[in-house]
């Protein structure tokens, strides 16, 4: 049997063993799909048709002017007409931030050319935009022009309308990244578990060289990562995640780069962390932390400068950059740098890991 066939057999067997383990399948596929589904529903529609801000209105005037004012406000607010006591109670309890009072002399003040209104608010200051809308609505009573509160138009850098699809893709991709690195770190610990059980020694005593075992181990990590990503993307795609909004290639490049990088990290850590339990512990926390600090779950432009700088050393940051580069910027041209860095980290991780694993052979 040639070395290549032995490597293939060992990597294939590792894959088969994972597929037969209900526990592994649960962590690698079932849980990520469930979490992705939840995240997709949370993020879904975030950019689809903004709802109008709510406004409580107390009508103490009851004239035609007051009715006209409420009608004008309805074009810019979700208006709810309430009693003054109810409005004050809601504000006092903090259930609302703002209430508008049309006082008893409101109609007269409009006729006199100076509409008088009152704004009740809680501890928070009144939002300037809300106040500007109210002023415009009141002014419309004087001018006779009904106010038009049209939304801004949001476009992606490529000129497409923003409809929440990319936010959904980005959020679910972050989840997949976390579960991919988790699975690969746990897979990386297997070689040490086998050493502890003695099965590794038995394989070597059968004439298989240690480097073949290491290569098969690295191959199995890569294969599991790629298969996991492919299955998760397919299943979540069937469930409605619009992965292909900008075609297949931006996604393929991003996934290849990210999985290769994650595999590199897993092999690199497996080369130096020899206790399976320690690797499993890393698998429990490291991916989530990398995702948070890499901007996979929250926009990094709200983070402090130091966190933004730190993110540049984080492979998850470059995975997200590859995704946005491919889908909302200049495609492959924007992906080139992030992908190069991801592959570089992956290669370094694999080289370092293999060196570490070779060292463990001697000890």
């Amino acid at each position, binding site marked *: 049997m040639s070395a290549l066939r032995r490597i293939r057999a060992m990597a294939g067997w590792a894959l088969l063993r994972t597929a037969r383990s209900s526990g592994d399948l649960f962590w690698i596929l079932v849980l990520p799909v469930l979490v992705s589904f*939840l995240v997709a529903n949370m993020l879904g529609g975030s950019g689809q048709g903004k709802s109008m801000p709510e406004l409580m209105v107390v009508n103490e005037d009851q004239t035609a002017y007051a009715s006209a004012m409420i009608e004008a406000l309805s074009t810019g607010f979700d208006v709810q007409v309430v009693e003054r006591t109810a409005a004050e109670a809601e504000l006092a309890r*903090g259930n609302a931030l703002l209430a508008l009072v049309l006082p008893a002399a409101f109609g007269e*003040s409009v006729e006199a050319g100076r509409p*008088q209104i009152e704004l009740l608010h809680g*501890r928070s200051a009144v939002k300037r935009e809300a106040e500007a809308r109210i002023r415009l609505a009141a002014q419309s009573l004087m001018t006779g022009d009904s106010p038009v509160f049209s939304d*801004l138009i949001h476009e992606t850098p490529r*000129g497409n309308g923003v409809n929440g699809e990319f936010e959904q893709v980005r959020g679910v991709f972050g989840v997949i990244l976390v579960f991919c690195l988790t699975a690969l770190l746990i897979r990386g610990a297997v070689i040490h578990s086998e050493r502890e059980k003695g099965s590794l020694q038995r394989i070597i005593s059968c004439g298989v060289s240690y480097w073949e075992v290491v290569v098969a181990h690295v191959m199995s990590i890569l294969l599991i990562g790629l298969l996991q990503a492919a299955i998760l993307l397919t299943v979540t795609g069937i469930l409605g995640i619009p992965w292909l909004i900008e075609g297949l290639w931006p996604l393929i490049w991003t996934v290849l780069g990210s999985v290769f990088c994650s595999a590199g990290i897993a092999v690199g850590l497996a080369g130096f962390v020899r206790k399976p339990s320690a690797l499993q512990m890393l698998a429990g926390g490291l991916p989530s932390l990398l995702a948070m600090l890499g901007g996979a779950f929250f926009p990094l432009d709200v983070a402090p*400068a130091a966190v933004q700088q730190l993110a540049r050393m984080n492979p998850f940051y470059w995975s997200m950059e590859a995704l946005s580069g491919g889908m909302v910027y200049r495609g492959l041209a924007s992906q080139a740098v992030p992908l190069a860095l991801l592959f570089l980290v992956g290669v370094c991780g694999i080289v370092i890991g293999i060196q570490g694993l070779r060292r463990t052979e001697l000890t």
Partner: protein
Amino acid sequence: MQAARQLITIISGLLMRLVRDGSAIVWLIMLPLLIIFVLGVTVQGLFSPDFTPARPFRVAITEASSDAQQHLIRALGSQEDFFEIIPVSDLDARRMVLDREVDAAVLVPNGYPEEAPVVVSEPGQAVGSILEEFIQTERWSIAAVDSAVELARMEVASEGPNTDAGDSPWLGLSAFEYYAVGLTVMFVMFAAHHAMVFTAGDRESGAYARVRAFGVKRETYLLGGWAAAVAIGVAFIAVMAGLTRLLFGVAWGDWLGWLVLTAVTAAAMASVSFLMSSVVAKSSTLEQLGSTVFMIMAMASGSSIPLHVLPSWLKSALAWLPSRVALEGYFQLSHGAHSRNLAPELAALGTTSLILFTLGWLISSVRARGEA
């Protein structure tokens, strides 16, 4: 008397197993603390009404040809902490965003302010929504610039707990305060679940049979497992409250309210876990089921993903989740509420505990029929 002694032995035995498990301690204590620190630092901007970006956003904007356009450029330019304005042509503005030379572009049409401007930016980034707030305010202000409207502002004093949020007690908290509570409530579920996984493992290893052979009743063992889960939950919340206060200065509020809420929260989480253990006997499956249910509960109730960003339908649809009720109780305490203000939360969590525990007990009893 003997049963009580046996109960205490079972509870302390399960507690000690967790304490001696070094990896569980790291997983339950170190990891949430690390995450609180990371999130507290990273997303503070999302929680603060006085947010200013680390550096002004670079914004390319259409060169002005009308007074209204010039007014908008001046208004945005005056917000030096937020924006660095670069006037360019429409075409250049789009190209600069595409080449990532700027963070966003604003294309102001000739019909402005009646016609809506276009904001070009990467979806999901904060710059787009911050620009929107500024531009829309300016837009309506320009339209009402000659307004004779007399507007009087009156602040309504808050009542009850020191909160500006009422039914939304998560508002007004810092990221550290939010996540200290959020992750404590999330991880207390995992902590309590450890006890039930241990008892399931005892059944598989034969330890349960041996304990029973020594005269311990099935009921005592069941109750011991549940009580150990509660004890672990209380101890966990106490440790997290102490550490987050020490490390991040998080105030957990009135100590009496905190104590009662902690006890019922731990009981509710232990009861969720107890019900699961009555249905699933295999320890590995029970662990996986717990991880799934608790992770989803944590996400849907706002422990890991802030309630500020959850869709309103999800917030109202899942407000009954015990983890959400506990979360809101702790948030109210952080805002200065007293134990008497927490009656609805305490009642909800207490009832949940009772129902789930009874259900779990009944299922366990039915499944154990025929057991000697």
